[in-house]
Each structure stands twice: as C-alpha cells, then as structure tokens.
C-alpha cells in the first residue's frame, strides 16, 4: 500500500545529513470522515535508520506526528556511497524499508 519513502543523505565534512519523507496517513483515531464516522487510528510507531550495520537513529512515534512524516537528523562515521536504510512499522504491523546512497 505504502508509497516509497524519499530519502536524501548528503555528506558535508564528516557529517551525513539525512532527510526522509515518508508516505503515511498518520490517522489519530480522532478524525471523522465525510459521513461522520471515526477513521480508525493508524500511525507509524517505530522508525529505524541503519547505516553500515549500525542503527544511527531509532524513533518511537505516536499519532501526533504529522501526516506524510518528515524527519531530518545528522550522524558521523560514514563515507560517500554508503547506504542509508530507513524502515518504518505502523500500528497495523505494516512496514516499509527504503534505502539511499550517501551523496
């Protein structure tokens, strides 16, 4: 169901800046649809970012992260061409993994 993430990882000096845009509705369970029925909660619960076999960021999210979540962070210890792998898992157990090479 889920569309691929857009991941950009750029090396500046010795620091890699990672920017991720995920495609996910992030339903809180509080929103009503056009018929006035509650839309069931469904949101990303965990995000893991891995590079060269090491987790460089893990995140626990609740329903309050915006729809189509954006995430940016920086880490050290990787070189150009290394792969950054991002995995999210939502409250329905669905998950998606995408990767990008550091440029």
């Amino acid at each position, binding site marked *: 169901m889920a569309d691929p993430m857009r991941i950009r990882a750029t090396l500046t000096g010795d620091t890699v800046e990672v920017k991720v845009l995920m495609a996910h509705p992030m339903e809180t369970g509080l929103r009503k649809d056009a018929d006035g029925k509650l839309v069931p909660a469904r949101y990303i619960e965990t995000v893991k970012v891995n590079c060269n076999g090491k987790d460089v960021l893990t995140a626990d999210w609740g*329903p*309050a992260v915006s729809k189509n979540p954006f995430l940016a962070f920086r880490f050290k210890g990787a070189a150009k061409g290394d792969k950054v792998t991002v995995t999210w898992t939502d409250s329905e157990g669905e998950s998606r993994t995408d990767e990008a090479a550091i440029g």
Partner: protein
Amino acid sequence: MNLSRRAFLQATASGTALLLVAATGLAPRRAAAAVNPLAPSDHRPQFEATNLDDVVKQLGGGKAQPSADIDLKAPEIAENGAVVPVEIQSKLPGTRLIAIVSEKNPHALSAAFHIPDGTEPYVSTRVKIAETSNLYALVQTDQGFFYANRLVKVTLGGCGG
C-alpha cells in the same frame, strides 16, 4: 390485535433494557476510549501520558529540569496545527534521547528519538498540535531529564478533520 400489541410492548421493554445496559455499562468505557484512543495494538505506556511529568516518569526518570542548553525551534504562531515544524538541538553532553511533548494533545508525547553515539543530538520533524499550548523539547542525558519549552499559538487545530 391484542397479541401483536403485547408482542410490541415486550419487544420495546427488552429493547429499553438493552439500551439501559448500554448506557450504564458500556458507554462510559467507550467515552473514555474516545478521549484517548491509541491504536488497539499500541501498548506503549509512555504514549498514554497526558503531561510532561508523566512522560518523564514513564520514560523512567524523576523530574525534568529546565535547561538553557536545549535549542527548540518552532513557530510562535502555527497557522495549521496539523503541520508544525519542530527542530531540536541539544548542547547537553551525553544526550541519548530527544522527545517532543505537547501537553494539550490527547497524548502528551508526540515522538521520542533515541540518539546513539556518533549521531548528533539534533532532530527536525513536523508534528500535530491540537491547540495553543506549551511545546516541550525533552532531553535525556546520563544526568537525568531536561527540557526547554515555548508557547505555540495554534489558529487551526491539528486533530480535527
């Protein structure tokens, strides 16, 4: 005629009884769930917390101290509460967790980021804020929990449709 009237009365009587059971027994539970519904599969206690102190407690801390070494960037006025950009940079040594806490949201904790060695104590993301309230950047170091906060005014709520 009489029989069908009796049947009708019986049917409505049992129907009323059912309604009463629903009103007394089930409705409060459902109402409570409607105020604070996490996804049924979600069993993370830190996301059930409704204020900063509770979030810190659920994350295993005591009381968070204010700190000037946490840089929290968020708009003063958020025109759309559904998409509020938040940027947090911690200058505290040994930062291992950065969390975004918004006290007037149904769940105070919005997101928590675990920062391993080699990753900068910096995150940037976008969150929903239900109404004008204090936004907290909560940071955990080896020394305990620290926070910075700022008031974000919301002109359009983040949770409605």
